[in-house]
């Protein structure tokens, strides 16, 4: 059986004042029906761009899918017509965004915004859509959903708004749900509630989830499999347990080392030295080489490929050469 979502050698470029920069470089991922894929990496590594590519929402210009393929249920999306993409968005693939505070339209009631999503894809009247919206608000754990449906976004808290976003995203029972850092803007107790809700939704609706995050705790709790991204490339991919317990790539090891561990008695928070290089300054070698303790000449001149070696696939010369 083929995967629900297959991304193969996806290249996305952006025209900037530095010329065309490569935001995604040969990204390949797949998501099976009903599973959760965690995509982790620092800000600017291409996680969100990957998600937006699937939704056909890359701002264009300046962005452009320069090559590769995205298949949802076997249907090629990179060449789909705008009308077909509109039919897919919200119905077959839906997305939850990072900023619940600004992701809802301030001048419409939340009920109307959910009902709109329903009416865009199902032949139902306004009354019926509104009743469905209220039922969804109830389903995502919003108390007195009848009254809340008539509220405007500014009358709800951040956590409530994210629940509204989730209700909107699942309103047409999509098979594919992309959650782009759904809890970044929320406080910790609310984060846990939202993850619980996503787990429930997945169980009830049978949706596959792509969870984009830089929170390894969220990965541990949610993900079946993990893809680690760095500077527009997937550098490591395996089951969540494998990546968490046996990270291969030095960057993945760094990320895992950064998880604070009270049991070990860590005094200070650890970090990976340096920052992600600006995309227009990427050279011929491994993008992580400048920050890597194991880098040698080859790392600075030749891009490592994502290849199975040892425990699971990682794009690293040092791993593949057995140096670490």
């Amino acid at each position: 059986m083929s995967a629900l979502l297959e991304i193969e050698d996806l290249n996305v470029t952006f025209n900037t004042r530095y010329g065309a920069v490569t935001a995604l470089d040969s990204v390949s991922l797949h998501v099976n029906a009903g599973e959760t894929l965690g995509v982790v990496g620092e800000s600017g590594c291409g996680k969100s761009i990957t998600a937006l590519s699937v939704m056909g929402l890359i701002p264009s210009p300046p962005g452009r899918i320069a090559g590769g393929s995205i298949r949802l249920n076997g249907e090629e999306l990179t060449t789909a017509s705008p009308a077909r993409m509109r039919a897919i968005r919200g119905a077959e693939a839906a997305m939850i965004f990072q900023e619940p505070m600004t992701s809802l339209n301030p001048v419409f009631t939340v009920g109307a915004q959910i009902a709109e999503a329903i009416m865009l894809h199902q032949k139902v009247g306004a009354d019926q859509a509104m009743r469905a919206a209220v039922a969804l608000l109830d389903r995502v754990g919003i108390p007195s959903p009848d009254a809340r449906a008539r509220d405007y976004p500014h009358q709800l808290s951040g956590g409530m708004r994210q629940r509204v976003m989730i209700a909107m995203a699942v309103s047409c029972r999509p098979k594919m749900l992309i959650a782009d850092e759904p809890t970044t803007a929320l406080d910790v107790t609310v984060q846990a509630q939202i993850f619980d809700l996503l787990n429930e939704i997945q169980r009830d609706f049978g949706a596959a989830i792509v969870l984009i995050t830089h929170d390894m705790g969220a990965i541990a709790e949610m993900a079946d499999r993990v893809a680690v991204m760095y500077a527009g490339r997937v550098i490591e991919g395996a089951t969540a347990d494998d990546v968490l317990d046996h990270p291969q790539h030095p960057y993945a090891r760094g990320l895992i080392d950064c998880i604070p561990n009270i049991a070990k008695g860590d005094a200070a928070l650890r970090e990976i030295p340096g920052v992600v290089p600006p995309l227009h300054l990427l050279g011929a070698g491994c993008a992580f080489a400048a920050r890597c303790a194991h880098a040698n000449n080859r790392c600075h001149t030749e891009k490592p490929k994502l290849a199975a070696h040892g425990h699971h696939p990682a794009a690293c010369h040092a791993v593949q050469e057995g140096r670490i």
Partner: protein
Amino acid sequence: MTASFFIRRIAYGLLLMLGVVILNFLLIRLAPGDPAVVIAGEMGGIDAQMLAAIRADYGLDKPLPTQLWIYLSNVVQGNLGESFFFNQPVATLISARIGPTILLVLTAQVLSIVIGMFLGVIAARKPNGPLSGFVSVFATIGYAVPVFWTGIMLVILFASVFPIFPVEGMRSVRLRDAGPIAQFFDVAHHLVLPAFTLAIIYLAQYARLSRASMMDVLGSDYIRTARAKGATEQSVLFKHALRNAALPILTVAGLQFGNLISGALLVETVFNWPGMGRLAFDSILRRNYPTVLGVLFFAAAMVVAANILTDLSYRWADPRLRGRE
């Protein structure tokens, strides 16, 4: 809640009107020129005794605070005084002319908002496209050109080159006995040039403003959400974005209403539109204080009413403002 807000706004409006009346009254007395001398001039030569008689007749010999008090108590009772020149009550003079002025001002306001916003939205879709460039150039020119010049150019163009629109007056004499529908189209036909002349500055301004406002809104997260749920481009632009982008335009349109009225006075003079503009112009030249004050009173009332309407429409358009002061 909205009712109490409405009542409070009307109370503020009345207070503002009182201030405007007092200020107008005092300002006009500070201006050089003596109405008694002008009236005497109309009568054709005069001596000092008659001048004093005229002053006594019109109450101009009383101290200024007394004059102000008499004027205010008359205004409160709906009496705006008598015109020296026409020998008619000012209220009668104005009520015969305010209808055409309101028609002209409202038409220009609607034209400028609707066309301006439409151009702005279209331009914002492709900020680097040719239409966007056209809107910018058109807006700069439209904003820079004085309204009386635009009016005169349009008169020349449509009087001699393409005589398709009437350039003078509000009705055709030969249609004076026609049915209401024919009269309606006749007035609308006469309205085209003056309304466009008056609208063009504001149209240009609203086009620029809505272009900027739309570009700002189109980059926001909730527009991405609308696209992510599969909304059509048309719905994204005209439903999700425009309602938000219209908020600053509402504000500016409300503030500009006063300028629109003063612009209307000029346009009426150019197109011989039978409104308050001509009356104001002539009254100022004749030092006809009661009429000038009356025109200013009605202009101020229109601005105050427009501001109240702006406040209400703002609260309708932006739910975040409801239930706040």
